[in-house]
């Protein structure tokens, strides 16, 4: 699979990342090498093989184990906001959306 500059720009938009023109050139080349390397997976015969998304599921657990849905104490508002870049009036402030 050959990857173009336009492909990289499209993926960057999906990933909410920005690259300078210079970064794009180097990045496109590295991206291509990595994709060429993973192409080898196409040599593997996967017909009839079930996917493994998660090993726990194969360890004899029927499903992930969830706790009972009971209300428990949670972080106080001040602590929840302590790491926020722009807290205000008990909320997280962001640039105007509409």
């Amino acid at each position: 699979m050959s990857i173009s500059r336009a492909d990289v720009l499209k993926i960057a938009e999906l990933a909410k990342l920005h690259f300078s023109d210079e970064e794009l050139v180097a990045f496109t080349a590295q991206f291509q090498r990595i994709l060429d390397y993973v192409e080898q997976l196409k040599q593997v015969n996967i017909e009839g093989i079930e996917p493994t998304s998660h090993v726990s599921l194969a360890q004899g657990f029927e499903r992930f184990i969830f706790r009972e849905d009971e209300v428990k104490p949670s972080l106080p508002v001040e602590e929840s906001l302590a790491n926020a870049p722009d807290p205000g009036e008990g909320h997280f402030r962001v640039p105007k959306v509409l």
Partner: protein
Amino acid sequence: MNLTCAFEIGEAVNHKKVSAVEVAESALARIEAVDSALRAFITVERERVLARAGEVDRRVASGESGMPLAGVPVAVKDNICTRNLRTTCGSRILESYIPPYSATAIERLERAGAVVIGKANCDEFAMGSSTENSAFQVTRNPYDLGRVAGGSSGGSAVAVASGMATLALGSETGGSVRQPASFCSVLGLKPTYGRISRYGLVAFASSLDNIGPIATNPRDMALLLSVIAGRDEHDSTSAPVPVPEYTAQVGMSVRGMRLGIPKEYFGEGLDPEVRSIIEAALSNAKSLGCELKEVSLPHTAYAIADYYIIAPAEASSNLARYDAVRYGFRVPDPQDLSEMYKRSRSIGFGAEVKRRIMIGTYALSSGYYEAYYGRAMRVRTLIKRDFEKAFETVDALLTPVSPTPAFKIGEKVDDPLAMYLSDIYTVTANLAGIPALSLPCGFAAEGLPVGLQIIGNQFQEGTVLRFAEAYFRGFPVTSPKLKV
């Protein structure tokens, strides 16, 4: 004071032969003396460490029992949350993040009397194999300051290897504890997936991530594992499997233990010197009374390619949370929401993290999902089955940890693929979810450490540690002098 054995420190502090504060002062003095050369720590808060050690001494004085790690200094990789102690993940985006809670593994360590001595350097978000991807500093190998510590848990491995901490926690997504342990001549364990709670371990690739302990000897490793392992209601993937008495298991005989030697781990690309050291280790294993037989894990060659679809795919999803809203770096005065996301993430993340987010986004994007991620999950099934088949006839597998000893700083930074290939023998255990240990077994001619990998079946950490202890006692490794 000698800081190499956690068992001894715990006993001495519990019997009031030495105080936890004195132990902490020794560790802090060692950090003061050598860390400017090694750069293993991102954060060390001296007053906090001494206050925590003082609390341990008060608990001992009040007669509290059940503190096997009383006063033991532990280095913690900086992607494991510590309440009110900065946790950066080696990233600018979390440069000033102060977690409001501690990881379950940290809670359990502190309950057992351990003292967190500092936060250890790592590749940004644990993405790397050399600790060169940290946004803050490059950690150096104590056996050759011009060489890498390995990674991503390089700071944790160096802290223990150089006597700045007795134990450490690292994390593993694809070899990130075992490879630096091998490069620095300490023990590093990747446990069975679900053995140790991931609560408070900053997520990279959730189906592969594990917290991994580091120690200087198998008994300490068994003790540390027994303290932090077990079910945790805060992690739905932590396993409801009882935690055995690992410390009792380590002393048992290995006579008649069946060890498989997977031929695919001894092929092209294995450094000849590493090969001869590992082959010598195999004959040592035989002389301990173990039965060796060749086995085959035919899908090994596809493991790196498989890993570099699955791990970035999960990472691209996990790292979407860095949106500059609730925590983390935000650019000043963004024009709108979209610009805030893009510019904050582009400045906050380093090159390797962005590369993996991009690969993962691509692999999951519409039209490519089945061809990349769907196929990779099926190949993962085949890699896992290879191990299941091997464990029908053997108790554990022996392999090299890494194809070469520690490489030079800067040698692979411009070639991501070459860097990825240094994990070729370790990522398989993460994909299969099984335990594997790196055990020091020799030194190459330039004085660089080489590790032997012992891979066990699911939840068979006890078997792995039992072999490690027998080998450790039977064939002690003589280390060259550290360069610090």
